[in-house]
């Protein structure tokens, strides 16, 4: 019955999570969701702990979600936006991190445009580091909240068919989901234009339970989960797409296409959505859509992670 809590120091990606660790996060997220359902959505757990949100890349929902999570646990929150900091004067990432440490920050939540930046920070910061998205590499909290949302609706992940549609090649959301979903036993189908997926063999070699498909209708057949990714408009400027309209025609999710998936299939999107591009506005608000729930679950997941890492601060 008694589970030994994990002594994880940082959360940088989901590639090193064990099955037990996923369960541990989800159990605690359930408890955090109960706190968030109360009239007074706050517990005193992390009083006196300072969490710094270091965002080197713009973000609304992830930053606010982390801020809500930290505040629900009564932590102090420092928001640090690179655009208004000494970063513009040329301060290096390592200097910034050492300064944050000297200022008494206990936990760093970092979003950075460069893949790997939170790993560098983790090496130079005494406390825990939480990756809130780094370049095209990883977005572990998004992966966890996606899997948590699926689990709430469909039960155990093992054996589910999850189709991820869109710009897989550049997506940190897709990568973190891949690690988590395959570890927990899901069958994942990656679907999109070849220019946005890259060589199929590379994915299938890295993840034995993953299959690549370039035809959406075929990929969707019998799917339990349809996860749509944001199509960045600059992909067209980079020459990877002829036109957005063509993308929408071939890969855009419509109510009609959704019929091919299982009747209970969930529609997910990490946001922000380009309605009318990768997702039809009707699909976004249909009964199968859990997009808003993903946002709400994100706060519970991030509370669970902050709590779990809080025990590790200063434990050098």
């Amino acid at each position: 019955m008694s589970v030994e809590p994990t002594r994880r120091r940082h959360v940088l990606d989901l590639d090193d999570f064990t099955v037990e660790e996923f369960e541990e996060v989800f159990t605690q997220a359930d408890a955090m969701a109960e706190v968030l359902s109360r009239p007074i959505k706050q517990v005193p757990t992390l009083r006196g702990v300072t969490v710094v949100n270091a965002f080197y890349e713009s973000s609304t929902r992830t930053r606010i979600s982390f801020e809500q999570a930290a505040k629900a646990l009564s932590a102090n929150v420092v928001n640090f936006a690179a655009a208004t900091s000494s970063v513009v004067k040329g301060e290096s990432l390592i200097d910034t991190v050492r300064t944050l440490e000297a200022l008494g920050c206990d936990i760093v939540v970092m979003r950075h445009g460069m893949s790997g930046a939170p790993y560098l920070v983790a090496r130079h910061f005494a406390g825990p580091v939480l990756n809130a998205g780094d370049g095209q590499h990883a977005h572990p909290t998004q992966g966890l909240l996606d899997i948590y949302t699926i689990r709430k609706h469909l039960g155990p992940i093992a054996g589910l068919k999850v189709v991820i549609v869109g710009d897989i090649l550049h997506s940190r959301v897709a990568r973190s989901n891949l690690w988590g979903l395959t570890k927990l036993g899901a069958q994942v189908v990656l679907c999109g234009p070849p220019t946005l997926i890259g060589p199929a063999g590379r994915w299938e070699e890295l993840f034995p339970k993953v299959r690549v498909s370039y035809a959406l209708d075929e990929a969707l057949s019998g799917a339990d989960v349809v996860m749509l990714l944001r199509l960045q408009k600059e992909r067209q400027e980079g020459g990877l797409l002829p036109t957005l309209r063509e993308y929408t025609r071939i890969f855009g999710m419509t109510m009609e296409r959704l019929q091919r998936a299982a009747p209970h299939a969930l529609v997910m999107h990490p946001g922000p959505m380009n309605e009318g591009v990768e997702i039809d506005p009707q699909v976004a608000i249909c009964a199968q859509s859990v997009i808003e729930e993903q946002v709400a679950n994100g706060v519970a997941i991030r509370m669970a992670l902050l709590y779990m890492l809080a025990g590790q601060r200063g434990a050098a």
Partner: protein
Amino acid sequence: MEGPEKQLMSAEEMRRALVRIAHEVIERNAGVQGVALVGVRARGVPLAERLAQAIAETEGQPVPVGILDITLYRDDVGLRADLPIVRSTAIPFAVDGLTIVLVDDVLYTGRTVRAALDALMDLGRPRRIQLAVLVDRGHRELPIRADFVGKNVPTARDEEILVRLLETDGKDEVVIAKRREG
């Protein structure tokens, strides 16, 4: 792992103690109108359920039972590296205006009860809170006392009280043992 154990309560003694506490709860509150039980995780939960059953058998009236997890209210979060896993609180009734009987297995330093009181207050404004424990082993560090006690046991700090319940441990008994050398 621990040294030799000595039994303090058998299954039968435990049953009698719970029946007596059930009667005391009824007597103290002149019935169970407006009374609810809240078990503190982990072993307070099955104890609360058993008390509720004993009360229902005597009074012919069910009492609501809730589950409280106090992990998020601990006072040692910053002091220990291995934080316990948080589990859900599940109190399916509004606590406002009720007499809440908190149920736990062992009363020791009083810190768990302090945390439980804070946790309950965050959920609303109970009319009063009473405390029922199976074993009171002394060594309080806070000004807290129990209203209903199954058994008072004088202990040394290097001893450990282990409450075993059918639901969690496969059998009913209370034992005392020397604490394992750290």
